[in-house]
């Protein structure tokens, strides 16, 4: 006989879905014809196709037939708890293997009806699961989008930042390209802002100057046109630009002839050579134009931290970050040896590579993991609550189950029935939870995502939905299992004798489990409340930090002089002088001035400084100062405190002696307790200026960053940059002056783009948006946890009271004082709450280190926060107990004994 076999899957299909004689006969027929076709008629391939077709049709037909028959089964039959085998007999031979499916179907129908009969219980359980699952799904979607999924670059794990994203000189870049074989490609970028003119109203574009092979490093090439050629990084040949897809579709209306067209950036004509692909967005940047970086040293020279390049590289296939680090070390050492005044040991130590993704998500990583931990805790509480609800329900159904059991329902059948109900609860809760998650994510995308790195990559996806579904099912089934197993061994006689009506005894085994769950909920809630409390306190402290300037009644905006214009000597200085002139004419404007970097925007420029005639002491650390270039009006506009000397004045022109104003920190760092006025310092290695004044320290990078040495220079004496922030002190609400201020600036020169118009208070708020966000989210989780624990506490006391109504009634009838009864009821919950609190305090202290890095000047074991959290939880528990305790006190002996 031939060894040819029909297709395996089809045979399995038949084996699974057909039963008994039917399976034997049909499979036999198909086998016979298969062999016949294969050997004598049309060959094996055709036979296999035929067999497959026949098998699917046979199974499909049976599925349909059974489905129709199932729907017609009268529901009453299903409630008798008839066992599978009996059902199969009664259903006749055709029913066969469909018994299991049929029973499942019946269980589902019966389960749904059972759930609908108890809308209170079902609603509570579904809501609790939905809250837990919804919060989890939302947070894990964010985690998935931000952390777990890689960046949009091909082989993103090979894209690294070199030197921790520190700006380096361009010659270093060339050296790395030659000597570090662990890199497949090395490039660099520096971001910039460009005025796009000649296309209607001038607008400011954010963009990047990129070194050659930048597009090789990121692995994304223009979709239209080409990338930059190596020779386009030579001065004079760099008149080219690559546009973002959105810029091409938007302002350029998707013009098909865009490649080859000339546009003007900063007044410089550049030929469009490419358009990036749709959907490509640089990580955490809003770049819309890319221009070649020329090999030219910039105005400020080639110093670290001034006009450098952030180096990025693509690791060669198989190369490890460690190998790259090892190859970088000698280069770093050589640079340091050549410039001992500039670079220190920390420069060599920092010569490492970091995955771009890790670098991008940065500090937000901790926040997200903390939130993930918190939300998992919320889910655990939700699980505990569901378990409690199911336990309570299982107890109250003891009588029903006992009756069914005694009428012959098999234990397996009952357990399956209960499990089906649990699974249904899980599915309903999970479905609702997914809805909640979707809503949350939608809100997140609409309102928050822009403030977050990679926030636009967040969305519901199959993985996360699967996760949510699994979580809800496991929750429900796991916690439905226990009551279901209990149902297997009910004290039949006790239940049937009617003692279920006095469940004081029937439910003896249960409260222990419930109380454990309550203790668990209380503990977790306390941990979350403490965490939220710490963050709230930290944010509160942060918001009250004195930034060193007056942020209220302050309007700020950014202007960027196109570099093709205002090139002649003094033109820029004159422009900013006339801005001040025009602004002062607006009623309500008190003072105005311009500054190179607006505080709280993380932008800054720092450089080494030295004091003239004071040689650097051996072994003392080199000092960096943050340098700001300002116009005379800024001190009044920002409201800085002048501690000595004078501020920069209009008379500090380009021909006057060079002056600078330093802050307290710099005065201390450079001159100790000596008077700095009249001393001369050197910046950038070439700019010498005499100290004419000292101002109080100002937080420039962010509220959480304590101020360091800082120097303010006169714009008239260093007008190198055309992009400045104009600050306007107003008499009243700054936002109301926005139209007239913007109009005044635009009226001066319509080709100068104005952007980032905002009140300083808003800038401050935005600067701590991350910490405010995590505080808000963790607080919501903590409240959710608190709410769920309150429900848990309430549920347990409530159940105790109703379970002991009979007993309480008897005792009341015998003259027991109400107070004693209430005290006894409450003491039942006091122990688990107290134990939970203790465990929670332990947990909060233990987990303190996790949130440490998110806190600003708040100790992670802050006793006040812990105390407040504990008291809040205690009050909530007491509040939850009041209603059921009153119920216990008002039990009417006559009514409950009459039954």
């Amino acid at each position: 006989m031939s060894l040819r076999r029909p297709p395996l899957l089809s045979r399995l299909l038949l084996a699974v879905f057909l039963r008994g004689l039917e399976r034997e006969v049909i499979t036999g027929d198909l086998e016979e014809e298969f062999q016949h076709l294969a050997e004598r008629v049309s060959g094996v391939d055709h036979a296999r196709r035929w067999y497959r077709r026949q098998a699917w049709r046979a199974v499909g037909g049976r599925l349909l037939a059974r489905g129709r028959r199932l729907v017609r089964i009268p529901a009453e039959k299903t409630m008798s708890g008839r066992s599978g085998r009996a059902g199969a007999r009664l259903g006749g031979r055709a029913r066969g293997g469909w018994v299991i499916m049929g029973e499942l179907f019946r269980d589902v129908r019966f389960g749904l009806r059972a759930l609908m009969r108890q809308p209170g219980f079902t609603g509570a359980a579904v809501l609790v699961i939905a809250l837990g699952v919804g919060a989890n799904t939302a947070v894990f979607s964010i985690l998935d989008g931000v952390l777990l999924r890689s960046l949009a670059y091909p082989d993103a794990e090979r894209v690294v930042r070199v030197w921790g994203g520190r700006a380096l000189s361009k010659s270093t870049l060339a050296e790395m390209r030659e000597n570090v074989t662990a890199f497949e490609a090395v490039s660099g970028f520096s971001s910039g802002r460009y005025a796009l003119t000649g296309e209607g109203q001038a607008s400011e574009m954010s963009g990047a100057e990129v070194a050659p092979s930048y597009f090789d490093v990121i692995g994304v090439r223009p979709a239209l046109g080409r990338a930059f050629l190596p020779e386009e990084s030579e001065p004079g040949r760099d008149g080219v630009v690559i546009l973002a897809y959105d810029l091409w579709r938007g302002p350029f209306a998707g013009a098909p002839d865009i490649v080859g067209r000339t546009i003007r950036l900063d007044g410089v004509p550049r030929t469009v050579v490419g358009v990036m692909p749709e959907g490509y967005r640089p990580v955490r940047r809003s770049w819309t134009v890319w221009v070649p970086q020329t090999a030219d040293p910039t105005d400020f020279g080639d110093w670290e931290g001034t006009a450098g390049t952030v180096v990025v590289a693509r690791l060669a296939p198989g190369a490890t970050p460690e190998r790259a680090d090892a190859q970088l070390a000698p280069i770093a050492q050589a640079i340091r040896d050549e410039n001992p005044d500039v670079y220190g040991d920390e420069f060599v130590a920092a010569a490492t590579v970091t995955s771009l993704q890790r670098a991008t998500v940065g500090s937000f990583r901790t926040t997200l993991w903390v939130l993930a931990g918190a939300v998992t805790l919320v889910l655990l509480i939700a699980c505990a609550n569901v378990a409690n609800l199911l336990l309570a329900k299982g107890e109250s159904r003891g009588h029903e189950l006992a009756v069914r059991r005694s009428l012959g329902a098999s234990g397996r059948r009952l357990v399956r029935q209960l499990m089906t109900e649990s699974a249904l609860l899980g599915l309903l809760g999970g479905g609702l939870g997914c809805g909640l998650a979707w809503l949350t994510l939608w809100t997140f995308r609409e309102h928050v995502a822009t403030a977050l790195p990679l926030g636009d990559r967040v969305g519901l996806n199959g993985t996360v939905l699967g996760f949510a579904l699994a979580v809800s099912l496991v929750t429900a089934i796991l916690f439905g299992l226990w009551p279901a197993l209990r149902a297997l061994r009910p004290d039949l006689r006790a239940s049937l004798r009617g003692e279920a009506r006095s469940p004081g005894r029937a439910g003896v085994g249960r409260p222990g489990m419930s109380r454990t769950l309550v203790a668990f909920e209380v503990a977790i809630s306390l941990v979350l409340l403490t965490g939220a409390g710490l963050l709230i306190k930290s944010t509160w402290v942060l918001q009250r930090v004195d930034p060193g300037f007056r942020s209220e009644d302050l309007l700020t905006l950014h202007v960027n002089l196109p570099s093709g214009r205002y090139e002649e000597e003094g033109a820029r200085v004159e422009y900013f002088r006339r801005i001040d002139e025009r602004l002062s004419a607006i009623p309500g404007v008190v003072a105005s001035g311009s500054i190179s970097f607006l505080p709280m925007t993380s932008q800054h420029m720092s450089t080494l400084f030295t004091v003239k005639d004071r040689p650097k002491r051996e072994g003392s650390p080199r000092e960096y100062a943050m340098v700001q270039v300002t116009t005379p009006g800024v001190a009044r506009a920002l409201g800085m405190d002048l501690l000595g000397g004078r501020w920069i004045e209009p008379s500090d022109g380009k021909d006057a002696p060079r002056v600078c104003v330093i802050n307290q920190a710099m005065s201390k760092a450079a001159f100790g307790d000596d008077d700095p006025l009249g001393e001369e310092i050197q910046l950038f290695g070439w700019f010498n200026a005499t100290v004419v004044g000292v101002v109080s320290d100002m937080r420039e990078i962010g509220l959480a960053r304590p101020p360091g040495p800082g120097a303010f220079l006169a714009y008239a004496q260093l007008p190198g940059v055309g992009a400045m922030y104009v600050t306007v002190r107003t008499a009243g609400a700054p936002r109301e002056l926005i139209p007239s201020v913007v109009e005044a600036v635009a009226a001066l020169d319509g080709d100068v783009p104005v952007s980032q118009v905002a009140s300083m208070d808003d800038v401050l708020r935005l600067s701590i948006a991350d910490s405010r966000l995590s505080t808000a989210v963790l607080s919501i989780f903590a409240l959710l946890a608190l709410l769920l624990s309150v429900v848990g506490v309430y549920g347990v006391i409530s159940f105790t009271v109703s379970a002991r109504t009979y007993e309480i009634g008897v005792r009341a009838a015998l003259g027991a004082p109400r107070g004693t009864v209430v005290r006894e009821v409450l003491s039942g919950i006091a122990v688990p709450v107290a134990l939970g609190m203790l465990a929670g305090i332990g947990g909060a202290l233990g987990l303190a280190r996790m949130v440490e890095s998110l806190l600003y000047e708040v100790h992670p074991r802050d006793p006040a926060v812990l105390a407040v959290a504990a008291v809040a939880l205690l009050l909530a528990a007491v509040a939850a107990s009041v209603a059921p305790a009153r119920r216990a006190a008002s039990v009417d002996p006559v009514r409950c004994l009459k039954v």
Partner: protein
Amino acid sequence: MGRALGGFEQTILLALLRLGAGADGVSIRREIESRTGQEISTGALYTTLERLDARGLVSHELGEATPVRGGRRKKAYALEEAGLLALRESYDTFSVMVRGVEAQLDVTGEPETP
């Protein structure tokens, strides 16, 4: 008499009539397929045969297991008296209804024999 026969039921009964007693699923299917030129589903065939069996129009007995069937038994069917009656009734209904409209159906000539 039960309800009228369906089209597929008529086809199967006619096949049994042609094949005589003892026809199994494979031969019934082959008979129908070779005459109509259309592939029929074995599953559907047995579903219908079971239905006819339940109505007493056909009967079956279990045959022996053969190696070509992978050691599985077969069912051999036979047309019952009731089945023959049902077929006749269907034929009567059909001929009464078709009389006078043959031209419109374009079936005036003798049907082609395969």
